[in-house]
């Protein structure tokens, strides 16, 4: 027994002495230095720090088609085939705004991850934006670690970081409302419990960051020394005009009725914020016109702003595009498979179908500048005639909308023009599920001659413009009319009035100027601003946000989606070369869907997990 005890003692003392003399053991387990990057590697020079920063561009969402069939127009503008249950637009129509977390197809969606270069992940705005904001903060916190670099290089980096911090907050705020404004790298130690800010509080923080970015960034990277490395490929890199225009957009949104109400004010515009928005837009427009950095595209190339066919890799947008969605898979993604979704099954056999609603097409007024009051009634003043409803319309109508009798094949004639009349070949009556169930088709996001014969199905590039110059003119018009109190108002930073700005967009399209009867006061003028945005920016993903911020989403007629039904008056003597010259009869507008919305439908719900962590991060009302 003694022997055993001694053994115990011996072993124990060995163990103890081992522990005492063990300082080196911790070192043995240290991560070997060659397996790690040095502390300031990501930041030490322009090449590295710009690489760090450019992941923020990779966090820009793909709005239009992160998935094969992506719905992103949730206003009263587009109707997708209702029997298809995987589309978020169905959830939205049904008032189930949880759709963004449950539906398979749609933007924004959840379930993606940030930090990848996968197309599908780029539909997850929520995840990518918060990731990008963290990254921007990390970059800002490490600006001092850029040990070598010129003043210009430092400004470029810093300007981009501040821009993106604001921009991603803004992108989230559009859908989910005011958030905590994250301007530090949140610690890993303690789970943060920051309170939600009101929309306007949050917007002010964005504006400060956009201001800082605008003060640091150039108008054109091609003109800088650092930008010479990427000469000719700098168009997407953030510049001063982008920062100013997004500053204006943030302020205009903050001053819009919804955001004003959500921030504790009345359900009406906030004049002061709109005035500041007008000044920011004015600055952006003055700088644009002075430098020629961006230009309204010529009307003959209007469709090239949105989509290019056989362009040998050239991106759509021309010099009008200011800020575009993520380019991942840009050359193939529209072909797979969205291009199929805009034509009925009689023209394109595959695809989940969507068509412009008739109620929305009605916003396209007459070429002389008159709106259409009731599409079933003749109007001597405007010249609208329901027997010839597609005659003398706004020239943009013919560019972006296909109506009965329009060519879908270059051959034309009876077999190559669409039959959208009731019981026509392309009609819903002929094919209840995949026929054209509204009476109109979209030629903005899909070439008019998209069919297997003419080959327009292949080689399409459609990159959505998240901001383009025409949009900035229209936002300037809205902000200035409200902020400076009249359609003739002019911001302190620009030489043109609100009405001038709209007319610039109309002049490009060859549409008559805003009529005098809308120029008496801001309220009348705003009805034409709204119509102009509907027409100029149709199907580009703006309408839902516009209806929400104007607080019109829950009001009739903005809750309705309609189709038209009609017959050709003289089918045997049909003029296939000029479809608008053919008489039609029995034109009527039929309601397809009426949404049942309440005030809760002004915001998307926040993820359930987030709102269950602490009291200050509350759910949006009604969810």
């Amino acid at each position, binding site marked *: *027994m003694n022997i055993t005890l001694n053994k*115990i003692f011996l*072993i124990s003392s060995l*163990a103890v002495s*081992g522990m005492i003399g*063990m300082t080196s*053991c*911790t070192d*043995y*387990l240290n*991560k*070997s230095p060659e*397996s790690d*990057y040095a502390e300031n*590697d*990501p930041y030490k020079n322009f*090449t*590295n720090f710009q*690489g*760090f*920063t*450019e*992941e923020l*561009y*990779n966090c820009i969402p793909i709005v239009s088609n992160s998935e094969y069939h992506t719905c992103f127009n949730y206003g009263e503008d587009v109707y997708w085939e209702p029997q298809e*249950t995987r589309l978020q637009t169905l*959830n939205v129509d*049904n008032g*189930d705004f*949880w759709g963004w977390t449950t539906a398979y197809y749609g933007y924004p969606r959840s379930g993606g991850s940030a*930090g990848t270069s996968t197309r599908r992940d780029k539909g997850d705005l*929520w995840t990518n934006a*918060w*990731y990008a*904001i963290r*990254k921007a*903060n990390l970059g800002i916190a490490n600006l001092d670690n850029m040990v070598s670099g010129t003043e210009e290089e430092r400004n470029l980096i810093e300007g981009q970081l501040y821009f993106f911090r604001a921009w991603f907050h803004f992108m989230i705020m559009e859908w989910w409302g005011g*958030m905590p404004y*994250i301007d530090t790298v949140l610690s*890993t*130690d303690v*789970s*943060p419990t*920051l309170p939600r800010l009101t929309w306007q509080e949050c917007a002010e923080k964005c504006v400060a960051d956009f201001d800082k970015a605008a003060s640091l960034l150039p108008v054109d990277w091609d003109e800088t020394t650092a930008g010479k*490395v*990427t000469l*000719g*490929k700098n*168009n*997407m*890199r953030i510049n001063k005009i982008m920062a100013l225009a997004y500053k204006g957009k943030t302020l205009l949104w903050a001053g819009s009725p919804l955001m004003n109400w959500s921030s504790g004010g009345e359900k009406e515009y906030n004049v002061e914020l709109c005035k500041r928005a007008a000044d920011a837009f004015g600055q952006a427009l003055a700088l644009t016109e002075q430098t020629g950095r961006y230009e309204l595209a010529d009307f003959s190339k209007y469709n090239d702003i949105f989509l290019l066919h056989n362009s*040998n*890799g050239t*991106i759509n*947008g021309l010099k009008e595009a200011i800020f575009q969605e993520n380019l991942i898979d840009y050359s193939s993604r529209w072909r797979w498979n969205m291009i199929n979704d805009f034509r009925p099954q009689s023209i394109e056999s595959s695809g989940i179908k969507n068509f412009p609603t008739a109620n929305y097409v009605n916003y396209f007024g007459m070429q002389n500048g008159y709106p259409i009051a009731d599409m079933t009634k003749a109007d001597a003043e405007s010249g609208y005639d329901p027997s010839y409803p597609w005659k003398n319309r706004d020239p943009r109508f013919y560019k972006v909308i296909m109506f009965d009798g329009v060519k879908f094949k270059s051959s034309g004639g009876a077999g190559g023009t669409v039959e959208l009349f009731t019981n026509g070949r392309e009609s819903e009556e002929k094919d209840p599920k995949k026929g054209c169930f509204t009476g109109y088709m979209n030629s903005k996001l899909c070439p008019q001659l998209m069919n297997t014969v003419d080959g327009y199905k292949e080689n399409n590039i459609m990159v959505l413009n998240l901001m383009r110059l025409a949009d900035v003119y229209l936002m300037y018009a809205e902000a200035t009319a409200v902020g400076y109190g009249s359609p003739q108002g002019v911001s302190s930073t620009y030489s043109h009035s609100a009405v001038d700005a709209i007319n610039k967009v109309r002049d490009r399209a060859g549409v008559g100027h805003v009529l005098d009867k809308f120029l008496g006061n801001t309220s009348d003028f705003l009805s034409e601003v709204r119509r102009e945005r509907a027409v100029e920016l149709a199907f580009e993903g703006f309408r839902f946000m516009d209806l929400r911020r104007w607080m019109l989403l829950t009001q009739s007629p903005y809750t309705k989606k309609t189709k038209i039904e009609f017959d050709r008056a003289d089918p045997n003597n049909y003029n296939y070369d000029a479809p608008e010259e053919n008489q039609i009869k029995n034109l009527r507008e039929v309601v397809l869907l009426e949404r049942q919305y309440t005030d809760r439908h002004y915001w998307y719900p926040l993820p*359930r997990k987030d709102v*269950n*962590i602490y*009291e200050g*991060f509350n759910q949006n009302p009604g969810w």
Partner: protein
Amino acid sequence: MFSRLKEAQGSVFPIYREDWVFRATYNYAMRYFFEANGAYNGSEKFGPNYRFAFFPSLSAGWMISEEPFMNFFKEKKILDMLKIRASWGRVGDDSVVANWQRFTAGRFLYKDQWQNTGNAIMGTVSPDNSPYTFWSISTLGNPNISWETVEKRNLGLDYAFFNGLVAGSVDIFNDTRSDILVDGGSRAVPSYFGTTPPRANLGKVNSHGYELEMRLNYVFANGLRLWANGSMTHAVNEVKFKDDAPLLPDYQKSAGHTIDQVYSYIDHGNLATWDDVIGSSAWTTNNNNKLPGDYNIIDFNGDGVVDTDDKAPYQYSTTPQNTYSASAGFEWKGFSLYAQFYGVNNVTREVNFPTFRSTAHVAYVEGEYWTPDGSGVLPTPRWGTTVDAAASGTRYWYDGSYVRLKNVELSYTFKGEWLKKLGVNTARLYLNGDNLYMWTTMPDDRESNTGYSSSDGAYPTVRRFNIGIDITL
């Protein structure tokens, strides 16, 4: 004993471990046993201040049957052996990923992991990779991360009586697993944190239970041997903490429930009329496909819609609380027969055979469908239309208890000189069968639902008969 482990694979930086262990045992006259173990373990996964931890364990035993005062029972062949055991110990765990992933994931948990890869796509004509390569943090580190520990307590009894007729053991255990390394994605950290938070020592699970085992064995004077073995295990666990979002209602939290607790939409009868259909809580999808005869799905949290929040804890977990095993047999003059049973209870399983799913030309015998006169309870199967995920309620969840006749074998072993002449040492002729019968309320014999749900092709258990002869030369 001291060991340093370096494990390398391909071009990956080697894994380092460092362990110090000691062990001391003592036994006195085969009556009193004592053992102490200690491990001082270091893992490269944790930061310098949290890297090493000490994990001791102690056990003691008392062989009562060797005490002099038990001699009477031993001599009378009443008692063969009786021993009481007790042990306590702490064990550390740093294995946050499956073993095969150990080189590529879950390493250096205390450090941020950087990567330098990927490019933005830029340009207006044939856009391509920007020359600036991304720098990004692929995994965020937690400088305070450390060992996960289990504190194990065990009390046991081994026994044998009546000259081998009865023998067995009883064990009672109680484990507390704490500082469990909770995956960042499961932590209650708001989205605006901006990335997956790091793993942290944030979980706690208690488990306890017992194991019983008994063996019977009797040889008659004529050589007939009868034997039977039986065992039972009972184990339950409860999550004490798992960083659930604090404001969640209790039924949605992991804490307070067992690991793998089954959650289900709860149904309450059928919707008998169109009035019932219209008046029922809305599904979030395909509500317009709801028909009379569908289950009335309970809006568990009363918010007006039936959504994933309305899934509630239902029955047990998918792991049985109790498992039973029993076998019995005899051997006599070369003949032998044995049968083996296996059973579980307190378990819930999904057995999902949906008729016409996704317009498939497959129908199952499901039972009686609902009719307006009230006969039958099963909702009408759908062909082209889809119903909400909630629509099936608890329909496909079954009490997973069963008893299975797992194995029966009858055999005869030949002996004799004639074998030798054939050059054969031994020969055994046998007939046996696997999975011969199962007693259960489940509709189908699929013992395990792991991997796939049964509708996705989980393979049914095979019943097999073998007849054969074993020959050794």
